């Protein structure tokens, strides 16, 4: 098992900055996801780890060994490419045994029998043991996916790298394979980096998720934390639904007092430990649809008033869209509620359900003392735990 440490990585292609200032530790046996919209630099980061690119700046360590300049074939990573990259001129078994035939441990190589045994075991792991003699073009998409996985796993890589491995599969197969990958990963407990642009996939399989945008890792945390404590506006927006209201800070205490442009006052919490909010700072107040309620729980709850613009019945709830000071807000309410466009509406949100986020994305994070964005160094062990 391998711990991967990325420190202040940057990779550019000519003018394009594909990824920058990436500092993170992927722990032994952990399944981490790189999540973000298309073009945000996920593949670039993965390929930096695999060794297909050399970073312009920064270092990569596998455990204590620096591998930044090590060529791909000496890194012992197993990669599953997005389009599988199975060799059409070889059978399934040939594809899977390829890496084993090359593998040397202390100058020793595997015997023919050992290779065969291991190939069978690996194919068994992905439920493909019967199909070793087949050619690649005789396989379905899901089967190809499995072969690619077996090929990467059979060499017992220290690191498993998966680049959108399920994006070419239909919905049902995708769920199946997702389970399969999770099962195998936890059985073998290989440090795994998984690239996807699908937030459901990311949240459901990962130990931790790195949300990326414009080449930066905006936040790297557990799925729960990513959803409940997003550190940037982008993360809050990208994961789940969220309504943002502009505001200006009135005062900073246990909670933060914010005034909206139309005069309404809102109290919320910060999600970034240690961020130095200041009075008068422009911020965004963010809340999830399910955190707005019709009933007031506590007299001090935030009160938000607006005009309903649209309602959508979705079975287990009623999505109510309403306008607050020119901004469209979204709430998820009781499906039995009778409400229609034009009605005025008043909703309540407890203080801890409203998130006050600084503007400026990752730039804001640089103001947090000890944050990797500020130091370009590994987070201290304390904040890592």
């Amino acid at each position: 098992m391998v711990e991967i440490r990325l420190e202040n990585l940057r990779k550019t292609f000519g003018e394009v900055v594909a990824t920058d200032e990436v500092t993170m530790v992927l722990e032994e046996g952990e399944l981490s996801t790189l999540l973000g919209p298309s073009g945000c630099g996920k593949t670039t980061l993965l390929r930096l780890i695999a060794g297909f690119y050399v970073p312009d700046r920064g270092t990569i360590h596998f455990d204590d060994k620096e591998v930044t300049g090590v060529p791909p074939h000496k890194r012992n990573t197993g990669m599953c490419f997005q389009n599988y990259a199975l060799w059409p001129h070889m059978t399934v078994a040939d594809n899977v045994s390829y890496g084993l035939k090359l593998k040397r441990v202390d100058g020793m190589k595997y015997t023919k029998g050992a290779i065969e045994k291991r190939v069978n075991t690996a194919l068994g792991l992905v439920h493909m043991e019967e199909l070793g003699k087949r050619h690649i073009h005789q396989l379905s998409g899901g089967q190809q996916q499995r072969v690619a996985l077996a090929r990467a796993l059979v060499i017992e890589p220290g690191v498993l790298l998966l680049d959108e491995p399920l994006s070419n599969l239909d919905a049902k197969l995708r769920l199946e394979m997702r389970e399969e990958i999770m099962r195998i990963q936890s059985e073998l407990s290989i440090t795994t980096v998984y690239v996807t642009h699908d937030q459901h996939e990311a949240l459901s399989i990962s130990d931790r998720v790195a949300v990326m945008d414009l080449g930066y890792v905006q936040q790297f945390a557990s799925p729960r934390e990513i959803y409940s404590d997003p550190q940037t506006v982008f993360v809050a927006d990208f994961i789940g639904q969220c309504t943002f209201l502009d505001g200006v800070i009135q005062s900073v205490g246990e909670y933060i007092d914010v005034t909206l442009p139309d005069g309404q006052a809102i109290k919320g919490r910060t999600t970034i430990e240690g961020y130095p909010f200041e009075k008068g700072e422009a911020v965004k107040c963010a809340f999830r649809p399910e955190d707005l309620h019709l009933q007031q729980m506590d007299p001090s709850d935030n009160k938000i008033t607006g005009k309903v613009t649209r309602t959508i019945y979705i079975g287990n709830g009623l999505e109510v869209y309403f306008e607050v000071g020119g901004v469209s807000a979204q709430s998820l309410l009781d499906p039995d509620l009778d409400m229609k466009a034009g009605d005025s509406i008043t909703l309540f949100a407890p203080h801890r359900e409203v998130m006050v986020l600084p503007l400026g994305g990752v730039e804001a994070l640089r103001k947090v003392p000890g944050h990797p964005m500020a130091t370009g160094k590994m987070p201290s062990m304390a904040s890592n735990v």
Partner: protein
Amino acid sequence: MTASEEDPVEVQEPSAIDSEMVPDSIRDSLTSSIRSAPRRFSSWTSGKVRSSGSWVKGGITRFIGFFRNPVANSRQAASQIRTRSKSGWRQLRREMDSLTWVQLIGVIAVFALFLIIPLLSVVWTSFTDSDTGVFTLQHFIRLFNDSNIWPWVYNPVTGNTDFFANLTPAIYDPDLNLLVIYGWDLGGVLNSIYVAILVTIFSVILGVFFAFIVARYDFFGKKVIRTLLIFPILATPFVGAIGIKEFLGADGFINKLFEPIRDILNMVLLPLGAPIPAIWLRGLAAIIFVQSLSFFSLVYLNAYSSFMSIDPSLEEQAENLGAQGLGLFRSVTFPLAMPGVQAGAILTFILSIEDLGTPIVFQDHVSARNTLAFQVFNNVATQAGGLDPKGPTIGILLLVFALVGFMAIRKYTALRSYDSGTKGGQWNPRTRRISRKATTLLYCLLVPLLFLALIPQVSVIVLSFAGTWSTDSLLPDVWTLDNYQVLWAYPDVTQSIYLTLIYGAIATVVIVLLGASAAYLIARRDIPGKTALDLLVTSPIALPGIVIATGYFTLFYNTPIFPVGGPAFLIIMSYTVRKFPFTVRAAYAGLMSTPVVLEEASQNLGASRNRTFFKITMPLIGVSVLAGSLLSYVYSVSEVSTSLILGSVGREQAPMTFWTAEILDMTGQYGGANNAACLGVLMMALQMAVITVTTKILGARSSAITGI
């Protein structure tokens, strides 16, 4: 990673793992890889390289025997190749990167030595005074005072500019009712240009027509038509010209064929004073005819692959918006196919201007001698001792035309070189079944055109089997195999056949060794100067062979690599350089249609770049390289211009094409067109065999590669 109980892949105890591992000795891995891989494609590839390695060895040894005075340099080159193939194979597999360097340097060295420097030396010779070495434009001035080259000649005596052109393109002989057409004679420069332009126009019309019909319509007998259309690709205009010359004569097959019709019509027309005459094509007119019928296949191939790669939805969209028929063709289809057509057209232009074989066959009329290619030949090949700068100077003119054309091709082909890479999914090209009636109509058009297109091949074949042939008979009176005795009547001719095959084979081996590597560098490695390398290795397609051969004379004549009477080594090198682009382009196309991730996946699993190249890349592009090398071979074997020029100073070492020209020129028992045609048939049979194999291997892809 170490073994652990929870790890299902790693179920063994550490000691058990030890027994699964054996020491990694190189010999073991070699023998085991040989033993374990026989049925796999990869081993086929390594086997191919291996066997070609030993082939080189054998071939070289045999080839050395043919040198009268074994030449130090060529022996050294041979032993280099031998050493490489013998001891180098092991390192080759492990040290591909360093080998890549060797091959990169090899490519550059070969091209510098046998292309760039000879061309520069031609430039040098034509711009300097041969006695003093001082820069001068004198040679050009003299050239443009030669009425064979340029029609407007200043006369210092009268102070006038005299005009020497022959502006009568034909003579009519009323007694024989014979119209002899030979074209306008405006001097070499203008002749070559207007001939090339007309040839290009005719080729484009014919080529685009055939390409469109074959690419877009399904009809009864299409397979046959497609097969027949492969034949013109074989037509080096030189071979075709031998047959056509006889067929186009005053009493030739064509005139005989139409004589009955003409006689009937003339019964009516003669009283009116306008009879239809028999036609005899000579000189430039004959060159235009022959070249058009040979080179249209280039346009055909390029246009065909363009038509096939047009996304059908583009045309469907236009139809959906109301375009149809000719309008659709003019507004959408043709513009989309334009890059291919243009590339084919420009290539036709270049090849027409540098073609030496056809003027030589038709040199009995003065206008055919007044072409640039012939003038170079005439001024270089005949006086090899002290070289008259006139040859190189005319060569410069040719070179300029060729280079301009080449740059234009690069511009157009660049647009489509990524076709296979970017278009993603495959589609079914739009073909339309046409009705029985339309098919009949189509055949009324196709049959005469095909007949025309196949005249070069058919006439050569007929000629080779013709015995006595009385002047008033359509076909030979007697069919015979006797003509073929020429193949062993002269030892030099027999040997030239053998030599030609060997020259081509050696050149092809060198081309494959260097070409696959060059393509790999261009397609996969991010090295500086990549574009220049690409330009360098594809340019020979456009560079006139006669100019290169001229360079060999100005640079190497009377040195160890080109001793008096010993052109063999340079013949091989000229084939290598000139036919290099076919293999590079094929290998490049193969690489472009092979996703890079397939190679990356291999590296990811622990294979070095070198190993990846041999285990993954080569098997995947092997077929393309094979096809390209077969083409290189075919075109080497049928090469005319350098063969004729270099062969003329070493007849014992001259290749087949040289002897074809010689025999055509000879009189006596084994001389003349019938015997020359036998060599032509042999050549075509050889080409046909290789092309058939290539098409078999490649299927539909072959057209994309044979088309430049």
